[in-house]
């Protein structure tokens, strides 16, 4: 079975950044740690679990990203993916979800696959759009927010369970080829082993030139979010803060 996993590299949530004075760009500090988007890690882990159950499964990971997104691909190889492809661009964020979906569906048209797995959304932009868009381009069935997956390679179908909310789930059977996007918590992504990590260092990463050019169809400006409350921020020593919080709660009869 051939599985394509589409991944994205994102900055860590605690990264510090600056918004340019005209609001047009976000500059991350040079110490920013980048990693595979956690939803995509779940996607890759799900593919790895399938490859352990179904022999001759090949997992190909693909990313659209800056030169340094190679780190995410190396990590994916170290986790156990077989092949890695990289659409290199200096600024991935200027491509809209629709453009990225078009690029990735073009990739899928040129590479045989039975199943595509993506994360539900990326941690940085949270659009949750790429998966269904790719499925629409390829005219294949899809299902999103998947928290359980069963593949029947003989019947060539999958049974996936989506989470609508924590108490409501729905199962759906899709013939292959199909696309799913996975919700957080579907599995526990593995850590790469040392031997895999060493092997991944030497593996080739296939670079693909991007023919698509971003078109800025909408104006966009970045701002700091508004405060909804006058927050009393405690910046003292730990002991001072403990006292201040105590007094605050005491004054409101909580303690």
């Amino acid at each position, binding site marked *: 079975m051939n599985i394509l996993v589409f991944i994205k590299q994102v900055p860590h*949530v*605690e990264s*510090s*950044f600056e918004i340019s004075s005209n*609001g047009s760009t*976000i500059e991350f500090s040079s110490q920013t740690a980048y990693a595979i988007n956690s939803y995509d890690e779940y996607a890759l882990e799900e593919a790895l679990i399938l490859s352990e159950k179904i022999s001759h499964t090949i997992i190909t990971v693909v990313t659209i990203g800056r030169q340094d997104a190679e780190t995410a691909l190396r990590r994916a190889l170290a986790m156990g993916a077989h092949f890695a492809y990289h659409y290199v661009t200096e600024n991935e964020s200027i491509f809209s979800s629709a453009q990225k*979906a078009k690029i990735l569906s073009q990739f899928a048209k040129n590479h045989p696959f039975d199943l595509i797995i993506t994360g539900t*959304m990326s*941690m*940085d*932009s*949270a*659009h*949750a*759009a*790429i998966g*269904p*868009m790719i499925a*629409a381009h390829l005219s294949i*069935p*899809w*299902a*999103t*927010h998947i928290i359980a997956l069963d593949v029947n390679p003989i019947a060539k179908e999958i049974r996936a369970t*989506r*989470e*609508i909310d*924590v*108490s*409501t*789930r*729905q*199962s*759906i059977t*899709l013939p292959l080829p199909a696309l799913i996007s996975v*919700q957080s*918590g579907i599995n526990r992504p593995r850590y790469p082993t040392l031997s895999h990590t060493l092997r991944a260092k030497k593996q080739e990463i296939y670079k693909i030139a991007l023919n698509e050019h971003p078109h800025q*169809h909408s*104006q*966009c*400006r*970045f*701002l*700091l*979010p508004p*405060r*909804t*409350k006058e*927050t*009393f*921020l*405690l910046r003292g020593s*730990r*002991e001072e803060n403990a006292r201040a*919080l*105590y007094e*605050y*709660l005491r004054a*409101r009869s*909580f303690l």
Partner: protein
Amino acid sequence: MKPKACLIIEQIAGNIRECAWELASLAQLEFFRETYDWIALIAGNNIERAATLFAEKTGIEVYALCDRLLENFSGEGFVRAYSTAVQQIKPYFIFASHTPLGCDVAPALAIVCNMDYFPSLQCLTRKNEILFAYRERLNGKINEEITITEPAICTIMPGVFPIFNTAKLSGKVSIVNIDTGKIKSIPAAPNYSPQSGAELSNAEVIVSAGRGVGNSENMEHLRNLASLFSRAAIGGSRAACDMGLVDYGLQIGVTGRIVSPKLYFACGISGSAQHIAGMKNARTIVAINRDESAPIFRIADIGVIDEVEKFIPVFIEFVQKK
């Protein structure tokens, strides 16, 4: 005649989802109400009752898109139904909810109908004839202001728009029989199984864990904190549930529980829109987070910039000495 705009109304087993009422309120914002004729699209089988209820409560015209194959939800079947309606109506805008079901159909619909896609919006305003929308980036640390150009599909973050439905006159309901044709997906009926965690609804104090709590040993600190109060309960963010720190039944947020305790401790929680939607009505919010720019500090009443596992024991000791 005014140009048309559509709402995608979610229902499960004939019950309208909460997020649908939020979309109706949005359509009733003055500039939307005055500029467009609104049509709500509900897809399914045996949904006449839901369609009538929605039309009566909101005054919005409803198209009930019906077919046997739409009995249970599939992205494929529902996109087929909506796109059939869209081809006929030719709306300038379509609003769907940024929910698991909304995000399953809306992006695909944008491709099929060749419309621009603006997901995850939290606020809409019009200035000088231009429609502006706001959405979060980096889990709420950055606000992105975008201009919306028609024709477009937008998804609206649930739990953000207040619900007000004051219709005096019911909207018209039209039953539209859809020929879904062949679909490859075989969807099953949704399965509702209430989770544990009912104690959260009655709790006066909730101590909530996030990814920043780090590991289950540190949960001990949160339990100790909770034990300082009577009628206190433990909850958590989605990330805390995924890490196994708390049960999924204790997840607070749009897809978990909506709570409004008197006192809420957010420990190591960044404050994403999906989490905030579930706890913003807490009367007093205390945030403990080591990152000063975490968005949770923007809605907290009092914030401690520190490591959860280091601060809480010191705080408890201080309280016990008093």
